[in-house]
């Protein structure tokens, strides 16, 4: 098991390297420079600024410098915010974005898996239909419609929760629900389909035949096998949640990493754009690895075969 994890971990490094080089080239070969948007600067000043950030050297040399810096955990300077390093900006924004994503994920798992279990256990009943209609609704309402509507109702009409900002727990409820609902809907459908799949398998029939109470069969035996599709979807879901939080951070005025990214892409703030892309790709790769490991833990058949 440890060998399997280690091998997969080593496999991530070349992938990450390809991503870094590809995004470096895309952003660098794009027309425009970080300094064109400012008011006109004398040519000599521009040359000096570029030399200061090392932008005057040939591209491969810059890439080499960047990779060396990265290896030391340094994302380099930001051209838009010269007084702060990319590391500082990320260290400030990322925990907020992550908190938001985790709250959303918790909400999605709670509601989604719950609705999925109800749907599967009472298949084709009114409960099932209600749960699946909710799921379809959740998938179809975009976050940028749901978010403002929630603010309209809960903050501006009933004065229950703050409409924006970040600080205490009351601030994350509405953004979390906004961000998580679509994933709750996906999880509900995955859970229902996964459970229905295992309902017909032999080991569930055995469990029933042993005379186990229904709740034990569902929670001890069916969930373990039936949740595999949900686990598979966890990796992409977390990645999408982090991207989706760009919108939610805008709606609720949350000082996460999202607003910086859009800004940085516009201003060709190479360091900041690269920093965010690299960090999120690394997180995403780690999540996928974690999912693979969880998969092996949950399903003995995969573990026995070795690497999936």
């Amino acid at each position, binding site marked *: 098991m440890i060998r399997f994890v280690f091998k997969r971990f080593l496999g991530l490094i070349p992938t990450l390297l390809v991503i870094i080089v590809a995004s470096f080239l*895309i952003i660098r070969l794009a027309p425009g420079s970080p300094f064109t948007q400012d008011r006109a600067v004398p040519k000599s000043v521009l040359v000096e600024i570029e030399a200061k950030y090392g932008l005057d050297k040939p591209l491969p040399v810059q890439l080499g410098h960047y990779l060396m810096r990265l290896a030391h955990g340094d994302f380099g300077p930001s051209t838009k915010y010269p007084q702060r390093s990319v590391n500082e900006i990320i260290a400030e924004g990322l925990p907020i974005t992550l908190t938001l994503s985790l709250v959303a994920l918790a909400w999605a798992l709670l509601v989604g898996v719950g609705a999925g279990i109800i749907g599967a256990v009472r298949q084709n009943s009114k409960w099932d239909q209600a749960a699946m209609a909710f799921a379809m609704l959740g998938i179809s309402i975009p976050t940028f419609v749901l978010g403002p509507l929630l603010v309209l109702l809960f903050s501006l009409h009933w004065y229950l929760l703050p409409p924006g900002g970040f600080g205490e727990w009351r601030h994350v409820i509405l953004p979390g629900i906004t961000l998580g609902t679509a994933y709750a809907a996906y999880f509900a459908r995955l859970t229902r*389909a996964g459970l229905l799949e295992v309902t017909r398998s032999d080991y569930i029939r055995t469990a029933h035949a042993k005379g186990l109470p229904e709740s034990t069969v569902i929670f001890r035996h069916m969930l373990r096998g039936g949740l595999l599709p949900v686990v598979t979807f966890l990796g992409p879901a977390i990645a999408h949640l982090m991207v989706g939080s760009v919108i939610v951070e805008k709606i609720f005025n949350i000082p996460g990493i999202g607003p910086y990214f859009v800004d940085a892409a516009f201003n060709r703030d190479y360091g900041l754009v690269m920093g965010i892309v690299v960090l999120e790709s690394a997180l995403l790769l780690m999540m996928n690895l974690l999912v693979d490991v969880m998969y092996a833990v949950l399903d003995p058949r995969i573990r026995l075969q070795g690497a999936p």
Partner: protein
Amino acid sequence: MSDNGTLWHDAWMRLRKNKLAVVSAWFIAGVVFMCAFGPPILHYAWGYSYDAQALSYGAQPPSLNHIFGTDFHGRDLFTRTLYGGRISLLVGLLAALVAAFIGTLYGAVSAYAGGQIDSAMMRFVDVLYALPYMFLVIILVTIFGKSLALLFIALGLVSWLTTARIVRGQVLSLKEREFVQAAQACGASDARIIGMHLIPNTLGPIIVYFTLTVPSMILQEAFLSFLGLGVQAPMPSLGALINEGANNMVVFWWQLVFPGIVMASILFALNFLGDGLRDALDPRMQQQ
């Protein structure tokens, strides 16, 4: 191909029995019709257009004259919503087409080539999967500017991965079948075998995934428009309208609610239709 004929026929019969899918299909047809012919009719009958401002009529609540109300600049919101729906549907459809085209070709070629070429091509897909692709789109849009054509190309360019995987899986099992060997024996070129024999046989899953891509493309166009990266004013898209509405929602609630409802119901119907098509075309395929 008589075998294939009954397959499509059976699928059609199954689809027609699925009431939700049929209702969704009619709803979408209605929306497409209204978006296509609504704006010119409204223009000739009432003189409303999506960009002519009439500031003295600014921000009126829904009434008989303006059933969705008017926006801040006095433009009829119903006209703007229809016009926005037109752009959203167009971008969604074209982006999904681009994605389906690239994905199908890539997946089919990869599977047909097999061996090391196949594993190299699929490894590339794996790497792309690990990219936070919405960030890539944001970068692409800021590089190439915010034109409509580049918007759907950028969206399509990052959304073909799943189609490629599905088509590859299908072609892998198809290419061992006798009819492919027969074609090879007749001396058909590889391009002909892929284009004439393999891809037509994978059309079912491609169509299903295509219908499910359209709503997600519409959603992503709206995502970009909401961030101010999509189509530019005065041209409306549903996402841009919702963004405007969200900024003014405290006083002018109708500017958020109506475009929001239209957007959600279009996505709702497209998703139901996609689900129905999947059940009809491949009853074995698991409902996710």
